[in-house]
Every structure is written in structure tokens, then in C-alpha cells.
């Protein structure tokens, strides 16, 4: 048995960490998950569909619990629930008119509340499920097999290829739907495709990270990057980098600590967002203040 202690020699620490198969797999899976969730999350934040994304992540819980209850594989449950929820959300007419938007969020909220209730019921019907519940909600980041990593990689490559294929028209439809539609871009179809991709990604990722952490990885790096820069390509790249940094740091710190990995990943993500948002706010105030000075100077 190797004794694990943290030294301030970081190279030695990392080397020690990589001696463990489960840590190597966790880092591999974390890397794939960070890239996949970052790219989809960037569009999700841009389209202001965080609530839809949260629901798509949450429905994996009743999906998996229900599948286990009826004796099917949990994986089937994750995907079936996420894709079904994506299609339900996509069926609501989404226009940028305020009313349609609030109609959408009301429907999503209703779906989400019912999904959680159904999940709780399935868990209680199954009985003696408590360990499973923890892993459904909080994931099993540190118990990933090599074959799971391969499956995750294949899925992520497919989802990212799909996203790349529709990338530019999706960006157009997200920013300026009226003009996009007049230009002949299938705005509704793109919206549905995006939700299905988001659902697939959420289902895949939540098998590793649990249904609660997946949302953190979708929303936090993207929201932080969009605070830092308004250049689309740069902020997308930054989203992926921030996601990677958060996951690697979280896993590294968790390895030397007794507390759960999800806590560290979320905390680093949150800290990054708070820093970026405060910097942005301070910057805006400074700019406004200097603008006011300029006006005063002109008046004087």
C-alpha cells in the first residue's frame, strides 16, 4: 500500500497520482467531458437555454432509475430520457417574443419538477437503492473503466462533429433568428437538433459525473468565458480551456483530500465565474466613470 501525501513538489505529486489506474481513467474521462460539455455549454449559454440544459441533465435521474427498476440497463435509461425531454422542449414554439419564451420556461419547469418526482418514486419503489442514488446524483468519477473511457470518447466525437456541422448557422439562428429565418436557415430544426445534441451530451456526461455535476460543467466555463471576452471564437476556445482547468484541478485536489471531487470541480468553476464577473463589473464601472469625466470635460 502506497501512502498518499501531498508534497509541494507538484511534479512528484502528479507522478504519484498517475500511478493509479482509476486516476488516469478519471483524468481521461474528465478531459473528454470538459471538451464536450464546454462546446455545447457555450451555445447553451449564448442561446440562454441554461434552464433547458439543466432539465436535460436532471431527467437522466428518473431515466436511469426507471430503467434499473424495470431491469433494463441504466445507459438506455439515460439516453432515452434525455432525448425524449429534448424533443418535448423542442416542440414548444420558440420565438424571441417575450411571451413564447416564458411559455417555454414554464413548460420546462413543469417537465423538470415531474421528472424529479418520478425519479424519487422509482428509487423508493426499487428499495434499498441508496448507494445507487448517490452515484446517480453525484457520479462515479473515480470508478471509471477503460472501456467506459472509449465509449465516452466515441460519443463525444460524434456529438462534437454534429455540432461542428451546424455551428455557424446555429450561431446565426441564436443571435439573430429573424434574419436567419429570412435567409432560409431552418431555425426550428436547428433548435431541435441542438437540444437533442445537448440531451445526448448530458446523458453521456452524467453517467460519469452524476446528474448534478453535468450542469456545472455545461454552464460554468461558458458563462465565465463569455464574461471575459465577446469574441466568439476566442470565447469558445476559452470555455474549453476553463473546463479542462477546472476538471483537472478538481480531480487533483480531490485526490489529496477526503472530500468529493464534484465539490472541488464546482468550486473552482464558481470561483472562476466570480472573478470574471467582478472584473467585468469593475471594468464597466470604470468605463462609465471615465465616460462621465469626458462629458464633464466637454461641458466645462
Amino acid at each position, binding site marked *: 500500500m502506497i501512502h498518499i501525501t501531498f508534497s509541494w513538489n507538484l511534479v512528484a505529486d502528479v507522478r504519484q497520482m498517475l500511478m493509479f489506474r482509476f486516476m488516469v481513467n478519471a483524468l481521461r474521462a474528465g478531459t473528454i467531458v470538459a471538451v464536450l460539455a464546454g462546446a455545447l455549454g457555450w451555445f447553451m449559454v*449564448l442561446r440562454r437555454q441554461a434552464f433547458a440544459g439543466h432539465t436535460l441533465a436532471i431527467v437522466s435521474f428518473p431515466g436511469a432509475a426507471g430503467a434499473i427498476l424495470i431491469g433494463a440497463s441504466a445507459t438506455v435509461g439515460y439516453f432515452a430520457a434525455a432525448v425524449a425531454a429534448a424533443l418535448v422542449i423542442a416542440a414548444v414554439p420558440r420565438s424571441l417574443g417575450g411571451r413564447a419564451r416564458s411559455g417555454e420556461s414554464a413548460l420546462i419547469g413543469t417537465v423538470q419538477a415531474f421528472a424529479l418526482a418520478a425519479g424519487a418514486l422509482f428509487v423508493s419503489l426499487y428499495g434499498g437503492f441508496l448507494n445507487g442514488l448517490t452515484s446517480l446524483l453525484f457520479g462515479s468519477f473515480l470508478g471509471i473503466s477503460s472501456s467506459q473511457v472509449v465509449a465516452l470518447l466515441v460519443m463525444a466525437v460524434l456529438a462534437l462533429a454534429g455540432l461542428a456541422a451546424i455551428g455557424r448557422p446555429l450561431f446565426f439562428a441564436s443571435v439573430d433568428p429573424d434574419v436567419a429565418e429570412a*435567409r432560409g436557415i431552418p431555425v426550428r430544426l436547428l433548435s431541435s437538433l441542438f437540444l437533442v445534441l445537448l440531451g445526448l451530451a448530458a446523458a453521456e456526461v452524467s453517467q460519469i459525473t452524476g446528474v448534478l455535476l453535468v450542469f456545472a460543467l455545461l454552464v460554468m466555463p461558458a458563462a465565465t468565458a463569455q464574461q471575459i471576452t*465577446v469574441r466568439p471564437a476566442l470565447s469558445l476556445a476559452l470555455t474549453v480551456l476553463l473546463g479542462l482547468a477546472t476538471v483537472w484541478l478538481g480531480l487533483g485536489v480531490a485526490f489529496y483530500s477526503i472530500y468529493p471531487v464534484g465539490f472541488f470541480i464546482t468550486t473552482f468553476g464558481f470561483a472562476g465565474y466570480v472573478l470574471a464577473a467582478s472584473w467585468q463589473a469593475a471594468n464597466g464601472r470604470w468605463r462609465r466613470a471615465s465616460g462621465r469625466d469626458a462629458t464633464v470635460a466637454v461641458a466645462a
Partner: protein
Amino acid sequence: MGTAAREKTKMRTAVDTADAVRFENAAAQVGGRTIWSDVNISVPYGQFVAVLGPNGVGKSTLIKSVLGLVALSAGSVTVLGRPAGQAGREIGYLPQRRNFDSSLRVRGIDVVSLGADGERWGVPLPFAGRYLPSRRAARERVREVIDLVGASAYAERPIGQVSGGEQQRLLIAQALVRRPRLLVLDEPLDSLDLPSQSAVAALISRICREQNVTVMLVAHDVNPILPYLDCVAYIGRGGAVCGTPDSVIQSQTLTSLYRTPIEVLKASDGRLVVVGEPEAPARHHDRHEDEQA
């Protein structure tokens, strides 16, 4: 632009094909109800034309039929010498809209760039603007139109954080990126303050003259654009009248179009006030309520 100039020459020789947009005995239905019929409108190349009429008369529907987004129930519309819907890339379109959300973290220049290639599948290659001549040319064109509309100072800022008039300038730039021969604008002055209204109207007029672009503009108030117009088209349920502003915006013409007594008053500064236009006063009232909500 070269083709537009050639079309202008053609206009002098063959009058029949000289119109950028022509409606012939056109009618349109929305939800099974005919909203206008017997509409005959000609928009000659290079002219600045306003489409006017009270609320609910179907001005936006008329614009959408020019774009080929709405099919006519009778008659025909010819756009740039072809049936509507086949001139896609040569039309620049600015839909009726509210403002961009102030939290949208996308620059004005990105929104303008989407006007050039937004519908192409895939994603732009990183750094392609530096190495591919076609991408570099596209980037320069974007800078050029931003300069043309006078938006260079704020094109790098998030579009939700610039004023309504500045947003409208950027959107006009977006519509102009591909050098359209016809620019179609649906209430571009709506929800702008008065100084911005006259500045944007002057800009549209300048684009029309200098870039030789035919402009069709839907408006509910003719006054900001009145000094620049070549032609107005007033739409009513049973037809349209089309001609110079002086000949159309008259008590007699509008009274016979709407079959209700209408009086056009001229203020000392040349502004026109149309009194008795069906539904118009109620509309102005609603507008203010919407703004407060």
C-alpha cells in the same frame, strides 16, 4: 453595383423591365382572410420608396411577399426581373424587431459578418482570415460596410450595449454586406428617438444614392423620411396608390383609397399630419403601452 448601373441604363431603353419590384393585381391572404387585393405597385431601380398604411393593413405581408416568404393568393410580384423568392442573395432584408438583449455577449461586427456567410454549414476555420484570400476579402468587406454606415466606433462592443440607433446602423450594415441590389426594411425607424430617426433616414437615403441600391421601406410615420423619398405606396384593403409623395399623400387620394373621410394637413415646417386614417390613433396608443410594459 455594376449590374445595378447597367439595369439603370436598361430602364431608359426598355421601360417594361425597368422595375426592381412590381406587383400586378396582387392579393394576399392571412389565415384565409384577404388582407389586400388589386395591388399594383412599381418600384423603379435606384429609387427610395416608402410603403405606408395604417396598422394591420398588411405592410409586413407585402414585404414578405417580395422576399418570397409569403405566397400571393392572386396576381404576381416580380423582384429584380424574376419571380419573388428567386433573388435571395440580391436582397438585403431588415426585419421588424425589438432590440437585442443587453446581456447578449456578441459584438456588432460578428452580427454584421453573419450577413456575409451566416447560412454556410460548418464552422469558420481558425485564423482563416489571415491566410485565405477569400476570407480576407470577406473581412475587409465587413469593415467597409461598417465604415459606410458610420458604426466603426462601436462595432467591437457587445451589440446589446449600444443604443437602438447604433444597433439599427449595424443591422443595415449586415443587410448590405453582400452588395444587394434591393434593400427591404421593415419599420427601421420604429422605437428610435427622433434624432436617431432622422439620422438613420438620411443614412438609408445616402446608401440608396451612393451605392445605387433600390430601397423599399415600411413606415408608420412618413415624416422622418419625407425629404428623401422618390415615391410612396399607400396600401389599403382594396388596392394601393403609388406615386410621388405630393401626389399620394393628399386628402382626396387617401379618402378614395380608404373610403372614409381623411384629411392631410401640412404644418408650417413641411411635416404632414394625416387625420382620420383608420385605426392609426389606437395604434399609437398601444405602442406607448407596450413600451411601458
